[in-house]
């Protein structure tokens, strides 16, 4: 059972790391977004510190969504998707593994880069740790929800932006609880654990709903 799953995971990881892959582009986009915001908001460090978690979360959301349209489209264009539908493997599991590979290639680097970018936003170590932890728990949900959008727009030529538009409403709960968990660690109007556990729950729900919905959408998009 796990032989093919591991091979699929390794294949996807290799594809996103090698030439033409999209592994590090997400982090660069994340860096660009987080750098641009102070130019708009102004270099006032106290203000930046207050909205720091929100900036990091919105940056992560956009970086994940915009990197997702190639997850299925690359395979559809060269016929691999057709063969995957015929491979006789549970499609939901195939989608879950592809999302996991995409998350490791683009989501995880975001989490690793978050503390570094938090320096630009003048966050104290506690806030830095909180944001990174919430991102670690939340970015998988963004990838899994985004996969639904990716599978819906797989047959469209320019699906990237449409995907983001479709999926942003679905990702709002993750954003809300992610940012509030990060803020709770700083100003703690509410204990850190409450929003954080809800965030983890959202990720688990996405881990089920995402693959099932994506698999269905992929089957319809085949003909």
């Amino acid at each position, binding site marked *: 059972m796990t032989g093919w799953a591991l091979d699929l995971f390794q294949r996807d990881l290799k594809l996103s790391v090698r*030439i*033409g892959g999209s592994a*590090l*582009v997400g982090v*660069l986009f994340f*860096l*660009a977004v987080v*750098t641009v915001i*102070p*130019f708009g908001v*102004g*270099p*006032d*460090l106290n203000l930046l510190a207050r909205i720091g978690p929100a900036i990091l979360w919105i940056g992560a959301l956009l970086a994940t969504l915009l990197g997702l349209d190639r997850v299925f489209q690359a395979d559809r264009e060269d016929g691999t998707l057709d063969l995957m539908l015929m491979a006789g493997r549970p499609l939901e599991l195939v989608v879950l593994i592809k999302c996991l590979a995409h998350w490791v290639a683009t989501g995880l680097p975001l989490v690793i880069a978050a503390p570094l970018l938090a*320096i*630009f936003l*003048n966050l104290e170590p506690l806030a830095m740790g909180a944001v990174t932890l919430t991102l670690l728990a939340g970015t998988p949900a963004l990838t899994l929800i985004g996969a639904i959008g990716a599978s819906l727009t797989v047959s469209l030529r320019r699906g990237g932006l449409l995907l983001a538009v479709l999926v942003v409403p679905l990702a709002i709960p993750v954003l809300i609880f992610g940012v509030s968990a990060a803020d709770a660690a700083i100003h703690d109007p509410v204990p850190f654990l409450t929003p954080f556990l809800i965030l983890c729950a959202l990720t688990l729900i996405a881990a089920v709903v995402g693959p099932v919905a994506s698999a269905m959408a992929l089957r319809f998009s085949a003909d």
Partner: protein
Amino acid sequence: MAFWDYANPTRFLRLVHVVLPWLTGLCVLAFAAGLYMSFFTAPEDYQQGDTVRIMYIHVPAAWLCMMCYTVMSISSIGTLVWKHPLADVSAKSAAPIGAAFTFMALVTGSLWGKPMWGTYWVWDARLTSVLVLLIMYLGLMTLWRTMEDPIKAGKAAAVLTLVGALNLPIIKFSVDWWNTLHQPASVVRMDGPTIHPDILWPLLVMAIAFTLLFFVLHLMAMRNEILRRRVRALRLRAASASHPGAAAATAQPAE
């Protein structure tokens, strides 16, 4: 510069083979002298004490990222205008080195800022422009990585580099303006003390050392890039060459 006459890669490689040991030797000497001077002969700053010694690597590194971008811009003109075969090799190999120097400038700037301003990062005009430059370097390196065919990637990167070069003064000006607009004048000026000869000399020697280091690394990186292109060309030929040892059972593929 005579340096560009070696258009032919093989002759260029021979030049590198000859020049490199000398350059490396000089570079090591310059670093030794520079480090010694910056730690021992240079006086402390009346205001910042010893932290001013960070300047001896921060300022050269900042100069180097500008110089490296200039080298890349010239190479880009070489690619687009003079169609020089080695120009895109030079541009591609200079990018990572430029990014590394920019990273160094940022880190040392931030570490220098901590004792003075109490935080690692201040949206000071110069630091911010260097940060924007780092993003441009990383963007260029990503562009190189996403295109399979080196010639096409070379042209695309050349256009982006030149557009970037045009924008650098604009970015510098706007960041300065943005900075003075928001920033109360309370920030201690970054360029530190008036340049006293005792401080100037170590700075110059370190700048020379950094420049030599850049050229050593740039030549070595260009050599690697030429070898990488040869490997790619040979592999393309290998794939299309009909392999003599094909299995007896199959007819000779007349590809």
